C-alpha cells in the first residue's frame, strides 16, 4: 500500500515537473518570438497577425494546451523572422520601383 502511495507521488511529481519544464520552455520560446517581433517592428516590418498569434499562444498555455501554444509561438517566430528578411531585402530593392 505504502509502496503504491510512494510511486503514486513519484508519478505525480514527475507530471508536475514535466508540466513546469514545458512551461519554462514555452516562456523562453514565447519571449524569443516576441523579441523577434519587436526587432521586425523596429525595421517597420512587423506583420499584422504576429502579435495576435502570441496572444493566442499565451491563452492556450494558460489552459494547459502546450502543443497549440508552442506551434503558435513557432508560427509567430517565423513571421517575425520573415519580416526581418523582407526589410533587409527591401532596404536595397525599394529604389528599383521608383519611376524615373
Amino acid at each position, binding site marked *: 500500500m505504502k509502496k503504491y502511495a510512494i510511486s503514486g507521488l513519484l508519478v505525480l511529481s514527475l507530471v508536475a515537473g514535466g508540466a513546469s519544464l514545458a512551461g519554462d520552455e514555452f516562456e523562453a520560446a514565447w519571449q524569443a518570438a516576441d523579441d523577434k517581433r519587436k526587432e521586425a*517592428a523596429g525595421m*517597420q*516590418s*512587423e*506583420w*499584422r*497577425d*504576429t*502579435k495576435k498569434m502570441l496572444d493566442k499562444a499565451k491563452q492556450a498555455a494558460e489552459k494547459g494546451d502546450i502543443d497549440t501554444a508552442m506551434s503558435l509561438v513557432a508560427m509567430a517566430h517565423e*513571421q517575425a523572422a*520573415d519580416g526581418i528578411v*523582407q*526589410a533587409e531585402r*527591401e532596404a*536595397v*530593392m*525599394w*529604389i*528599383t*520601383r*521608383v*519611376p*524615373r
Partner: protein
Amino acid sequence: MLRKYAILLAAVMALAWSSTHASPEDDRMAFEKYFTTKFPEVPLNDFQNGIYSVDPVARADWEQIEEFPPYELAVDAGEAEYNKPFANGKSYSDCFGDGAVRAQYPYWDSERREVITMELAINECRTDNGEKPLKWNKGKIAELSAYMSYISRGQAVDVKIPEDDPEALAAYERGKQFYYTKRGQLNFSCFDCHGTGAGKGVRLEKLSPALGHTTHWPVYRSKWGAVGTLHRRFGGCNRQVRAKNFKSQGQEYRELEYFLTYMSNGLELNGPGARR
C-alpha cells in the same frame, strides 16, 4: 551565377545613385509622367477623382452619388464645430483664420523638425486652448477636416520642401522609401497596387492611380458609413496586405503624407470626397 548577381548588384547601385541624385521635383515629374503615360485618355486634373478617373462604370454611380453628397452632413457638423467657442472663449479661427487652409498642409516645420499635417494642427489648436485632443481617424476631427477641406476647394496642392533644410529632404526621402517598400505577409508596396497595379482589379475592386491620391481627404466611405481621415486609409491599406499598420499621425504616416502629397503638387484640392 555569381556574375548574374554582380550584374544585378551593379544595376541596383546605379539606380540607387541616380535616384539619390533625383530631386523631389525630378521625382514628381517622373511620377506624373508614369501615370499620364499609363492612362493617356485621362486628363491630368481628373486624377484627383481617384478610381473614378479610370473606371467608367464606377464613375457613373459616383456622379449620381455626388448629386446628394454623403459628406454634406459632415461638412455642416464641421462648420458648427469650427465656429463653436472653446471654454477659454477662443476658437479654431484663432488658429486657422477663416479655415480655408488645406493647401498649407502638410508642411515641414523647421523649428520643430517634423512634418505637420492639418489634423495634427487641429488637435494642437485644441490642446493649446485647454481642450481635450480628438481621436485621429473619424468623428469630430474628420468633420472639422471635411469643412476646412470643403472651403479650400479649388486651391492647388503646393507642398514645399525647404531647400535650405536637409532634414526636410530626409523626411521626404523616408516617406518616399516607405511608399516603395514591400510590407506584410502578402509582400506588397503601396506602388505595387497604386502604380504598377493601377487600373487593374483586386477581387471586385479596381485599383486607383496614386497620382491625386491626397487631394480629396477626408473621404466619406460607404464601407465606413462616415467620413474618415487619410491616415485611417493608410492603416487600412497596410493591414490588407497583412502588415501591421502604423499609428495615425505618427512619424511614418506624416512623412508618407508629405511625400505622397508632394507627388500631387499642382493638382486641385477637391475634398471631401465620396468613395465606396
